[in-house]
């Protein structure tokens, strides 16, 4: 059950009083969403788990600074987004090393030896994920954030606008531009690689 505003106030008070059960309740409530926010940016399960841990460490250490002018969930998701963006900036140099050749080797995918149906589908899914993640990484931060949050269930444009501190029309615009840019990049890629 999602914490209501009154519950949030008492939950925060309990956590400030170092009540471990209260903090566990908070973690259990928001864990999956936070992990998926981090995963949306990092595309790596291990990195996402580590980052999510750092998010909750910061939540625990900074809970006294939570001003309750926004929902607790919004505050936590903002921390997750900021930590993820900082993580990407720090690792940007490493990501630039990966090239399309490293992902696919020297063979054209169409000439690859056909595998059985199940393995083929997994392989194709994996390759599509690599392609789209590369395209996502090249988006501006605001578009990347809006698209990543939109993927999650229960993340309405209203929730995204509160997390990003922009208006709902701005979120709609960011989503539209993100999708258009991603599709353009995919068209350019598949034009030469099909």
């Amino acid at each position, binding site marked *: 059950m999602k914490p209501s505003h009154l519950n949030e106030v008492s939950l925060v008070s309990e956590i400030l009083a170092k009540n471990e059960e209260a903090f566990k309740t908070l973690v259990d409530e928001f864990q999956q969403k936070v992990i998926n926010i981090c995963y949306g940016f990092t595309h790596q399960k291990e990195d996402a788990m580590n980052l999510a841990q750092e998010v909750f460490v910061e939540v625990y250490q900074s809970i006294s600074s939570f001003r309750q002018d926004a929902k607790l969930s919004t505050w936590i998701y903002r921390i997750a987004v900021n930590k993820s963006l900082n993580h990407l900036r720090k690792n940007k140099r490493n990501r630039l090393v990966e090239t399309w050749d490293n992902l696919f080797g020297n063979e054209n995918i169409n000439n690859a030896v056909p595998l059985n149906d199940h393995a083929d589908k997994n392989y194709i899914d994996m390759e599509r994920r690599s392609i789209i993640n590369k395209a996502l990484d090249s988006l501006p931060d605001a578009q990347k954030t809006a698209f990543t949050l939109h*993927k999650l269930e229960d993340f309405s444009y209203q929730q995204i606008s509160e997390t990003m501190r922009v208006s709902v029309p701005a979120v709609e615009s960011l989503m539209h531009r993100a*999708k258009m840019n991603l599709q353009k990049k995919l068209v350019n890629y598949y034009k030469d690689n099909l």
Partner: protein
Amino acid sequence: MNCTSFHKNIPSFLEHSCDLELEKQMKSHLEKCESCSLLLQQVYLTMQTAMEDVLHEDDVYFYSRLRSRLDTPAAGQKKFSLQFTLAISTFAVAASVFLGIMLGNNLMHYESTSVNNSFASSNPIASELSLSDLNTPSSVYYELFNDDPNESE
């Protein structure tokens, strides 16, 4: 419509944001061009992959790892060491500025003293005079020319 034009309009076609006439032309081209049809399919499926790429598994050990991370001193120490480093750095800068001012003052005092001393050592007459005498022009005159300013001619 040619393939180049079709490629250019794929994003708006997928987003249903092109006008009816353009949409009609796109559909007509799709029926005739197999490579554009395949390209559109790959773009669409890859976008779907992006939308569905979320983690569903529950990590049952997530909280216990988090708890041990919070309980280890490193979590608090890291924050503490940052504050400590900032405090030390601020103190070091302030101490350096203070020392610099003190040294500067001492250096100026030393230089003025050594100028006077070097003047005195190079001039035998001046060396017989005390520093306070040097500040009185009439006394200097008297000493140098052995004139008694009180004697009338």
